[in-house]
Each structure stands twice: as structure tokens, then as C-alpha cells.
């Protein structure tokens, strides 16, 4: 259980970055999109957004909405794109290796 949480936390960043690549999103939209893929406490995604913004991977802007107050939209910067590509590559590499290892160990049995 605890380990699972750690797994999720590690991939959460990648999923968030990938989600925003398609189109700019506002907080709630992004959170619900991400929580569809990874089952995490919704509250913990906001600090991550905050951090990514502070690290200049995201830009934010306000946009009026038909219902309620204006919403803050997140946009992936060039810097963020670069970071995301790196992260994706790293993940794929990592995933491939672990997968292969699992197959090997399955064959051994």
C-alpha cells in the first residue's frame, strides 16, 4: 500500500505534464483528468502544479468562464516540453527494463 503510493507519486508528474500537452487546462479539469488515470488524493495534485509552475515548466493565465469566477489555465512552456520529453524517455527506459526483468524472472521459474 505504502509502496503503491510512492509509485503513484513518481509517475504523477509525468501524467500531469502529458495531460497538459494536448491542450491548456484549468486546475479542476486537470485534476479530474489525472485522477482518472492515477488514483490519488486530488488535493495532492495542486501542490505539484504549483511546483511545476514555480520551476517554469508551466505558465498560467486567467480566462473567463461561463459559470463562476475566471479560471486559471495551465500552459506547458518550451522548457516544460523539454522536461516532459526527458521524463517520458526516462520512464519508458525504466519501464522497459523492469518489464524485461519481470519476464526474465518469469522464465526462470
Amino acid at each position, binding site marked *: 500500500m505504502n509502496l503503491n503510493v510512492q509509485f503513484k507519486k513518481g509517475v504523477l508528474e509525468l501524467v500531469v505534464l502529458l495531460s497538459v500537452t494536448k491542450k491548456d487546462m484549468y486546475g479542476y479539469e486537470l485534476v479530474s483528468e489525472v485522477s482518472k488515470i492515477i488514483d490519488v*488524493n486530488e488535493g495532492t495534485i495542486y501542490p505539484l502544479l504549483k511546483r511545476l509552475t514555480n520551476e517554469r515548466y508551466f505558465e498560467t493565465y486567467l480566462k473567463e468562464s461561463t459559470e*463562476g*469566477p475566471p479560471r486559471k489555465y495551465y500552459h506547458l512552456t518550451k522548457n516544460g516540453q523539454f522536461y516532459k520529453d526527458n521524463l517520458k524517455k526516462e520512464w519508458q527506459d525504466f519501464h522497459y527494463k523492469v518489464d524485461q526483468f519481470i519476464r526474465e524472472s518469469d522464465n526462470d521459474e
Partner: protein
Amino acid sequence: MSKTEFLNHLGKRLQVLNQKERDDILEEYAQHIEIKIQAGLTEEEAIKDFGDADALGDDILDAYNVNPNYNKSKLNVEKTVLGALQTFGRAVNEICDELLSKKPKELFLMLFKFGVVILCLVMVRLALELLMSSLQNVLYFLPMVLERLIMGVLNLGFNVMYIIVVLFTLYAFLKRTFLIDDEIKDEDDDMEYTGKDNHFNAGDANVVDVDVYANVKEEVEEEQQVKNRLHFKMPKRESKMPRPSKERREGTNTAGELFANICSGFFKLCVFCLLLPLVCLFVCAVVGMGILVILLFQGYPVVGLTIGTIGLLMCGLSFIIFVMKSVFKTFGGFGE
């Protein structure tokens, strides 16, 4: 928990962050809850999805690279600092009352005296610096190691001496200015400590001065040692601060007396520890004086140095006598 309750709670938890950041992130949560309510959830349910507010706060702080325990330790520190400030405030109050009860002429006189005292201390410091730099110029004919050793020892001794001088002058001045009766005694002690702390700042500033004066590394190291000594002593003094409040809480007269005893004992110990190297320095100075006299007779140009050393000896002697006298005089009556 309602929305406002939740946001307030979280806001309190995030107090370390600056206002803008905090408002920003709280705004996000508020909007999130708002949208969920619009989607048909109740306020309670919307908040429930966030889980424990404290854990969430920790997560947010973690994202900012702030240690979540910071808040908790800060509270303790706050308490201690507040306590110290209160004691200090009371001391300042007492002194202000004292000051207000005096006539302007007396006040002016006192201020003038204080200025003179400070000026004297600065002069002493300058003289010391001058002596040190001239000594260094004179000692060049000695082997490197010996020169550095002598300079280091002298530097340490001078600094220690200077610290004692400043402490005692300030203490004596304060004591004479504000004639203490039993009630104010504790406060005056506190005042004394703040005086010392002020001095520590001044001491550090002086250290910087010395660095400018002479760039010899060894000396800097010695200074560092002195600094360390200062810093070692600082916590000790601060540790005394909570003590009066503890004993005051007991509310008996004997507690005050006990505190006075402890204080005087501790102070005596401090003075003794500081005095020891000074006496060593004095002995060294006597030996050095002998060497200088011999050199003088052999025709070395060390007249100025000899005179300087004589001055140093006189200073040291009178200083030691002064310290001994004031320690016994001051604390003889203090414990009773």
C-alpha cells in the same frame, strides 16, 4: 468541516509561505470545491475527497521544499523568544520609569557619561589594534612559526581581556546608574545580559575590523577561536533566561534568592574562566618584558615596543585587580 473552515485550517498550516503563494493555492482549492458543489456534491463530500487537511498541508509544504515540522518547532521557538522579549520588555519598562523620574539635567549627564564610556572602549580597542599591528611589524625577525604563535596567543589574550573590560564597564555603569533594590535585581540582570549580547555584536564587528587590519591566516583562525568561545557562551547565557521565569512561577522569595545565587555563581565561573588565560598572558608579558630589556641593552631598536609592553603590563595588572575587586565586592553582597 465546512469550506471556510477547511480553507482557514489549511491557511494556518501554510503560514510559512508568503501571502501571495498561500492565497494562490487556497484559491485553487476553493475553486475545486466550488466546481464539485456545482456538480451536485455537498460541501462535506467535496472536502472529504481531499482527505486529512493536516496531511494535505504537509504535502503542500513538501512541494515547496519546506520541512512540514517547521511550523511545530517554530511554535516552541516563538514561545521562548516571546518569553525572553517579555522579560526584556519589563526591564526596559523599569529603566524607562527610572529615566522618566530623573531631571533632564541628570539625564543629560548620564547620557554624556555613557557616551564617554563607549568612547573609552572604542579607544581601547583601537589602541589594541595598533599595538597588534606594530607588534607584527617588529616581530618579523623571528622564525615564521614562532611569530605566528606569539601573535596568535597575544591576539587571543587581548580579545579575552577586551571582552572582560567591556562586560565589566557596562555592568558597573549600569549598576551605578540604576541603583538596584531587591525587586528590580532580576530585571537588571536581564538588562546586563542584553548589554552583553550587544557587545557580542560589537565584538563580531571588531573581528571583521581585525581581518582588514592584518590578513594573516593564523590570526583569522585565532579570531575564529575567540568567536567560537563567544558563541559557546551565548547559549549558556540564554539558557539562563528561562530560569528566572521558572523560578518566578514558584512565586516564593527564596526562589529569587536561589536564582541570584545561581547567577552570581555562574557569573563568577565565567569570569574565572576568562581570567585564567589573562593571567597566563600577564605572565607571558612579564617574560617578554625581560627579553625586550635584554634586546634593548644589546642595541636592538625596540624602545617603542618596551614602552608599549610596560603599558600593557600596567593595564593588565590594574585590570586584574579591578576584576578581582569588583567580583568580590559585587557578589559578596549579592548572595546574601
